[in-house]
C-alpha cells in the first residue's frame, strides 16, 4: 500500500513495552534526515529519546539534538509556567501567584489540568510560527502515553470542552480538539508487537481512536517482526535428533507465523498500512539500532519502495 505520513503532528502510541519510544525516535530521525525540521516531544517521563540518540538530556526546554532535530521533555510545571506567562506577561506576578505553595497544590487538583497543559504545549509547537510566517517545525512527533492512557490523554480536550464552563481553559481546549481531529494535520501511529495481547489492544485502541476520540490512526509499526527461517524438512529432522535445537527452531517458526498472522490481521481487520520492524538481537539498543529502524520506516517518509 503506497502511503506517506504527511501530517504535521504525529502521536506514537501502543501497549507498554512494545517499543513506542524507539519508533517515535526513529520516525523523528527519519523526518529530520529528509530535511524536515522535526521536534520530538516526550511527556513528563524519564527521557529516552536523547538517550537513544546518544545525546545529552534535553530537559524541559526545546533543545537541538542534531541537524533538523529538536527534542523536549514536557513537564506540567514548565508548561504551566509558559502558559501562565503568556497570559500574565509578568514574571514576578507569575512567581507570586503560581509558585505559591498553596496555589500550586490547588492547581494540581484541577481535573485534567496536567494533561491539558502538556497537550497544550505540544499543540503550541505544532502551530508555532517564525517571524517570517513559516512554521518553526515541519513535524512534531509525540511519544504519547501507552494504550490505556492514550485514549484518555487524546480525549482530554474534548472532556474539558464538555465539562469546563466557558473561559480561557475551555477556549484553549477547543483549539486543541480542533487540531487533533483534523486528519490532514494530525495522525496517530500505532506500535505493536506480533503477540496476541498487544495486537488485541491495538485493535481496541484503533477502534476507540476512530469512534470516540476521532483522532485518526494512520498506520501501524509492527515491531519485533520475525521472518520464517526453517523448512518443514528442517523441523522434521530436528525433531528426531535434538530436543533443545528442535524446540528453538519450533519457537522461531511459531514466532514467524505469529508475525505473518499479525500482518494479515492489521492489514485486513484494521485496514491500516503496516511497516515491519525486524527484531534486533544486539547487546545494546542505541543510535545504530534506531537508525536501522528508521531505514525500515522509509516508505512512510516518502522513499520509493
Amino acid at each position, binding site marked *: 500500500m503506497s502511503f506517506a505520513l504527511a501530517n504535521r503532528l504525529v502521536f506514537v502510541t501502543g501497549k507498554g513495552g512494545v517499543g513506542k519510544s524507539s519508533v517515535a525516535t526513529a520516525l523523528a530521525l527519519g523526518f529530520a534526515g529528509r530535511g524536515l525540521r522535526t521536534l520530538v516531544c516526550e511527556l513528563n517521563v524519564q527521557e529516552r529519546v536523547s538517550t537513544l540518540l546518544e545525546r545529552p538530556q534535553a530537559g524541559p526546554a526545546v533543545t537541538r539534538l542534531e541537524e533538523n532535530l529538536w527534542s523536549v521533555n514536557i513537564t506540567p510545571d514548565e508548561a504551566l509556567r509558559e502558559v501562565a506567562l503568556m497570559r500574565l506577561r509578568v514574571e514576578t506576578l507569575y512567581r507570586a501567584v503560581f509558585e505559591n505553595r*498553596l496555589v500550586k497544590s490547588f492547581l*494540581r487538583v484541577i481535573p485534567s489540568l496536567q494533561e491539558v497543559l502538556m497537550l497544550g504545549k505540544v499543540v503550541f509547537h505544532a502551530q508555532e510560527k517564525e517571524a517570517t510566517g513559516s512554521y518553526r517545525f515541519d513535524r512534531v512527533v509525540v511519544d504519547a502515553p501507552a494504550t*490505556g492512557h492514550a485514549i484518555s490523554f487524546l480525549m482530554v480536550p474534548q472532556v474539558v470542552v464538555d465539562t469546563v464552563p*466557558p473561559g480561557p481553559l475551555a477556549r484553549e481546549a477547543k483549539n486543541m480538539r480542533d487540531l487533533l481531529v483534523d486528519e490532514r494535520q494530525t495522525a496517530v501511529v500505532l506500535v505493536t508487537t506480533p503477540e496476541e495481547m498487544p495486537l488485541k489492544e491495538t485493535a481496541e485502541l484503533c477502534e476507540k481512536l476512530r469512534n470516540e476520540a476521532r483522532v485518526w490512526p494512520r498506520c501501524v509499526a509492527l515491531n519485533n517482526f520475525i521472518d520464517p527461517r526453517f523448512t518443514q524438512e528442517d523441523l522434521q529432522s530436528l525433531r528426531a535428533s535434538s530436543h533443545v535445537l528442535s524446540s528453538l527452531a519450533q519457537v522461531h517458526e511459531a514466532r514467524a507465523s505469529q508475525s505473518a498472522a499479525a500482518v494479515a490481521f492489521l492489514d485486513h481487520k484494521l485496514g491500516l498500512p503496516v511497516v515491519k520492524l525486524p527484531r534486533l538481537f544486539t*547487546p545494546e539498543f542505541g543510535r545504530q539500532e534506531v537508525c536501522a529502524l528508521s531505514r525500515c520506516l522509509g516508505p512512510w517518509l516518502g522513499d520509493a519502495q
Partner: protein
Amino acid sequence: MSHFPIATALRDKTVLVCVGAGGVGKTTIAASLGLRSSVDGRAALVCTIDPARRLATSLGLAELGNTETPIARELFHAAGLVPRAALSAMMLDMKASWDHLIERLTTPEQRARIFSNRVYQSVSSTLAGSQEYIAMEKLRELRLERSYPLIVLDTPPTSHALDFLDAPNRVLDFLDNEAARFLLSPVAAAGKVGFRLFRLSTTRASKVLAKFTGQRTLEELANFIMVMSELNPDFRSKAEEVRALLTNTNTAFVIVASPNLERLDEVVRLHTVLLQNRIAVAAVVANRVHFPVPETAWAEAKAFPAPLRDRLLETLAEHAAAARMDQRGVSYLQRLCLPTPVVEVPRFDLDVHDLTALWKVSRYLVGERITEWATE
C-alpha cells in the same frame, strides 16, 4: 529468607499486590498467583484494574465486571487441573466503584449534590491517581468484608510504577485541599447551602487564577470541594486503614519487572521506596527471561549439514544474545534488590492467555521448575 519465597507467600499471606510498570506482565503474574493458590487449596480472588481486559482473556472469560465472578471448574479441567478451592476474578470499573463509595458515605442530599457536579464526573474517571486510589479502597473493602483467604490485586498500568504509591495521596490532597479551603474560604451562612466564595472573589491570587481557568471553573470546583470536605473524616479514616493494610504482616507486594536493563533503575527505586514505607516485598519477578541454552547445543548444531546448520547457528546466536542481555538484567536486580529474592519466569513461545499457560508460569513462580530446557 525462604528459598521459595512465592510459595511461602501464597501459603501465609492474605493480600498480595502486584506492582510494576505497564507491559511487563503484571496481570499474567497476578492471575497465575490466584490460580496457583486455588489449585493448592486456598480460595483466592484476583482483582484487576486493567482497562484492556487482559485478565478476562487469560482466565477464559469474555468479560469481567465490577463484581466477583467464579472461574468455572470446566476451565480447570480443560487445562488438566483440579481446583481444591475456588478461584474468582473481577475487574474494577472505576466509575462504578467511585459511585459505590460515595453512595456508602453520603446522605441522599449530599449524594445528589455530588453526582450532579461536573467536577465529580471527571474526578471519578480522569483525575490522575483516581484509579490507584479506588483500587486501594476496593482492596480495603474486599479484605474487610469478604472472607477470601487470599486476595491478589493487580495494580493499574502506570508508566511509572512509583505513581502507584503516590497517587492515593494525591486524591486525598484533592479531597482535603488546604489551598482550596484557603482560597475559597467559605463563610457558612445560617442556611445549609449558603456559603460565599469569599476570598475567591477578593484575593489577588484567585483573581489571577480565574484569569487562567475562568471564574466559573473555580466556582464549580469550590462547590465540589465544599461537599466533599464534609466526607473528609471518612476518607481520612479509610486511608489510614489502607495504610495499615499495606503494612500489615499478612500483606506482601510482588514486584514484576522485565529484565530489560534500561528500565531497571525504576524497579530498584520502587523496591527501595516500598521497603522505606515498611511494606513487605515477597519477591521481584523477572518476567519473560530468555534462559541460556545448554552449551552442548552448539556442537549439536554444527553436526548438521548446511543450510540447516547455518540456520541453527544463527538462531542459537540470537538466543544467546538475548539470554546474555536478560542475565545482565537479572543479576543487576539480584544485586540491587537485596535481600529480596529475584524469581525468574521464562519467555514462553507464545502469549500466556489460558489456564494451561498460567499454570506453567506458576510452576516457575513457586520454584518447581528452574530451567526451561529440562525435559518435562
